[in-house]
């Protein structure tokens, strides 16, 4: 499958386009995200990186399915748990890792870190570390598209726990009353930090919350790329054609702990194992085999190639230069000064 592999120098826009090339490419991206997060976990555990990180293990299919259906001109907000989204949308492992390692060449110059990934070439706004904070911003981006009568779509990706914060409610209401081209995508991975959804939220089927805003909704298997694509495509089409916002609940599961130190001792016995049977990597692999697109050997080959590339990226990024001290004073507005964009 060498021909399916993007050069590591591919631009984020090219990497995005590649998702539409076929199921193999999407599988490869899933494998890349998985490998990236697993390696990151090791790097953090070994103390090679400071701060904290939030892995999206188990949530790869949602990110890839979503990214496949969006154009680079659509605008997306995400959260601190943003690596899968960023990689799926097209950021390279090198870009994401250099951000997480605080390197000078990173998209924010090493000033943002793990929780703040950004690449406007593919429509990814700086991801938000505050729960719920991205939603109003997505509403605003949708407003701009409607205002200018553009067919772009604004997308907010957020977690199940985030549906309990006021910003969720206000944003849904505002997008609905103004019929804005916004797609709200809730990654219901069953946990918000260390709390299972049933402890914080009186309903488990979060798509039901859309009814409060007379907003169309969908619930989808977030572990399955084709299912995600179908739901997103429908919502995106509705948005582009002036039909207003949609709320999509994707049922996923957080395979890792909440953040670095968390081993998730609070999980009910058997729950993880249950969900692992629907591991997105597994499902995608099975589908390729079942449809005769790739055989086991080819898959193993692809997986090892992707892994090797990631290993190489890690070694490269480790050696990249740190940002100069003076950069901490860059890109802060002072009135009167010109803008960067």
């Amino acid at each position, binding site marked *: 499958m060498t021909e399916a592999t993007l050069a590591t120098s591919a631009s984020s826009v090219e990497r995005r386009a590649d998702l539409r090339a076929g199921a193999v490419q999407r599988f490869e991206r899933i494998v890349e995200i998985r490998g990236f997060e697993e390696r990151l976990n090791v790097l953090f555990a070994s103390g090679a990186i400071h701060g904290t990180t939030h892995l999206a293990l188990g949530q790869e299919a949602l990110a890839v399915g979503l990214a496949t259906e969006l154009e680079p001109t659509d605008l997306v907000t995400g959260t601190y748990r943003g690596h899968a989204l960023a990689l799926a949308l097209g950021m390279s492992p090198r870009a994401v890792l250099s951000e997480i390692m605080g390197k000078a060449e990173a998209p924010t110059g090493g000033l943002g870190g793990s929780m703040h990934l950004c690449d406007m070439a593919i429509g990814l706004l*700086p991801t938000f570390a505050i729960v719920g904070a991205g939603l109003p911003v997505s509403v605003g981006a949708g407003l701009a598209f409607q205002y200018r009568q553009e067919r772009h779509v604004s997308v907010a990706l957020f977690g199940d726990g985030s549906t309990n914060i006021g910003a969720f409610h206000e944003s849904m209401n505002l997008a609905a009353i103004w019929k804005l081209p916004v797609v709200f995508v809730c990654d219901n991975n069953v946990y918000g930090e260390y709390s299972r959804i049933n402890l914080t939220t009186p309903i488990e089927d979060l798509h039901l919350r859309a009814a409060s805003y007379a907003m169309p909704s969908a619930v989808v298997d977030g572990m399955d790329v084709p299912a995600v694509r179908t739901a997103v495509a429908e919502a995106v089409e509705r948005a582009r054609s002036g039909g207003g916002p949609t709320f999509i609940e994707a049922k996923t599961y957080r395979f890792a702990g909440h953040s670095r130190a968390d081993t998730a001792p609070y999980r009910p016995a058997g729950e993880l194992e249950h969900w692992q049977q629907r591991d997105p990597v597994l499902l995608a692999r099975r589908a390729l085999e079942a449809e005769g697109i790739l055989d086991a050997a080819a898959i193993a080959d692809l997986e090892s190639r992707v892994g090797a590339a990631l290993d190489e990226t890690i070694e490269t990024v480790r050696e990249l230069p740190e940002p100069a001290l003076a950069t901490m004073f860059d890109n802060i507005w002072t009135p009167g000064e010109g803008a960067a964009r």
Partner: protein
Amino acid sequence: MRLRQAIVAALQDEMRSDPSVMIMGEDVAVAGGPFKTSEGLLEEFGPNRVRDTPISEMAFTGAGVGAAIAGLKPVVEIMFMEFLGVALDQLVTGAAKMRYLSKGQVSVPLVVRASVGSGSGFGSQHSQTLENWVTSTPGLTVATVSTPQTAYGIMRAAVRDPGPTIVLEPRALYAVRGPVERGESGILRLGKALIARPGSALTIVAMGQTVTTSLAAVEQSGIDAEVIDLLTLAPWDRETVLESVARTGRLVVVEEAPESGGWGSEIVAAVTRELFSSLAAAPFRITAPNAPVPYNRELEARFLPQPSEIARQLTSYLATDSVPAPWWVAEGIHHD
């Protein structure tokens, strides 16, 4: 025209010249604004550009951020500054850092307008100035207005600025009348203070409502004070203030905020740092008391430093070279 009309004029002129300027807020469209600061704009620019919002400060402030990132120049009205208490996140932790967090990929040409202050009988939850909620935010410009002309000039500058700006509008001044020069020449520069009255005996730094009361105090007292209208609070115009105090040797900051956490301390601290050896006497602040804004009309009238109170303190300061006590101490009413 009245100050609120100057705001309308500024918005109107910006909207005429730039199709990406739009406004939103609670009842800014059909009703022309709770304080009539957008009267006629819906009629002229239509419902796409002038939007009434639900009561959702978090959502529509954040929508301003998102719309700005996506290329609009939104002007968001926060009816009373207090309402930012549920939406501060979007401005301080969000908008102000977007350029930094994107290494310049993202701009947020957003204006948030908020009415502030005492003097209208709205009680303690609708009368605070709360500048301190926003002043410690690198990347966020905090401006204010004091006259119809400054309202016009600051508002237009704020709309044009590529970064996020919050404009604090003293509610009690909305009805005040004054001449307004419209057009390019009426636009002010953000970050630049105005000398509202030149003078040599001492320097008064004021802002918003206290510009008016300070000018009246100067009038009453006959003291030849220089009155600086700060206009932009963050980042404030150090050059103008330092130059003035270097000349007068004396600084008095007149604030509407309570003594605790008030914005004037920073002016005093910076001036002291830079000009310590050339100061003729201690620089000091005349502030509101450390109390919620009272509802009762008489009591509320005492909250904001009144011209007579300012005049009394200035006179005593010049006469004694020492810092006078505020009225509540001087009158034995409350001991700080």
